[in-house]
């Protein structure tokens, strides 16, 4: 009685697919007890489908190239280009990282030259692109960035890409 008088069963009877979207715990009417609940799954599948569509639309095939620390806020820009995978120099809490390895400002040029060397060893005959991605907090002073730019120029990295959040 409880099952037949519930709102769920009433809506199920009126729906187009009628009773076909129910879970029957013990299959069939013969085993249906008075207290067996019927779960309407159509609404659940609708919600799941909408979620899947939304997530698929916001899915990025490139994945996360940068790992941004909780203390770092990247600056925002509206006309930014798509970020590509290149060597990353990161400034976090006034510390300098090259490819997630902490280094000193004084050893930045040798470290960048090492990257070039590794590239030429692994891909002989190929020209080194000389691209560098800089990831820094929006409040960082140019005083620090200047050292990176100077080191990049010194090591032959002529293309610097500043990581930003797209507006």
């Amino acid at each position, binding site marked *: 009685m409880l099952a037949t008088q519930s709102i769920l069963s009433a809506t199920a009877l009126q729906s187009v*697919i009628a*009773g*076909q*979207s*129910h*879970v*029957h715990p013990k299959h069939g009417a013969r085993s249906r007890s008075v207290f067996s609940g019927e779960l309407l*799954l159509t609404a*659940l*599948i609708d919600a*799941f*489908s909408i*979620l*899947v569509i939304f*997530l*698929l639309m*916001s*899915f*990025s095939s490139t*994945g*996360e*190239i940068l790992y*941004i620390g909780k203390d770092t806020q*990247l*600056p*925002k*820009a*509206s*006309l*930014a*280009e*798509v*970020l*590509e995978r290149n060597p990353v120099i990161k400034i976090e809490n006034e510390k300098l990282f090259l490819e997630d390895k902490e280094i000193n400002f004084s050893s930045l040029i040798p470290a960048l030259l090492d990257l070039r060397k590794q590239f030429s060893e692994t891909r002989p005959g190929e020209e080194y692109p000389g691209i560098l*991605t800089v990831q*820094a*907090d*929006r*409040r*960082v*002073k*140019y*005083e620090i*960035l*200047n050292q990176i*730019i*100077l080191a*990049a*120029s010194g090591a*032959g*990295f*002529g*293309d*610097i*890409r*500043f*990581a*930003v*959040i*797209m507006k």
Partner: protein
Amino acid sequence: MRHNKKHLDFELNLIPCIDLLSVCICFLLLTAVWLQVGSLNVKQAIGGQSASETEKVPQLWVTMGAAGDLILNVKQSAKIPRKLSSLSLKGVQGRSDLAELNKAVSQIKTLDPELKTVLIQPRLQSEYEEIIDLMDEFKKTGLTDLGVVPL
């Protein structure tokens, strides 16, 4: 005649659908990238070529002053009148006046459409965000070749 009446009602088994959708949602949630990170590209001179060999293209030099002040200097362009080749823009509340900058650069750009190169000269105390804001504003006005002057 005897009709072999088949039962036409059937039950859709929705459990596998729910399983599949749940797996899809979990995978997509785990791999989702919530922040769209992009990049502003800057071309730096790395030497190797003498100044006399370098092609003379119109350039806009922007010097960042204290309190958001900006000094614009157009170099190597014969199309820009002297009045416009050197401009000074006052900052607003310690930040650069981007609206005024856009207006001034658009005016310069209409006089010399070949102007595409901007060289930004920040102060040591300039914030990274201020430099990026300027770059973004220049990109909006069609100046795409950006550079930052090392100090």
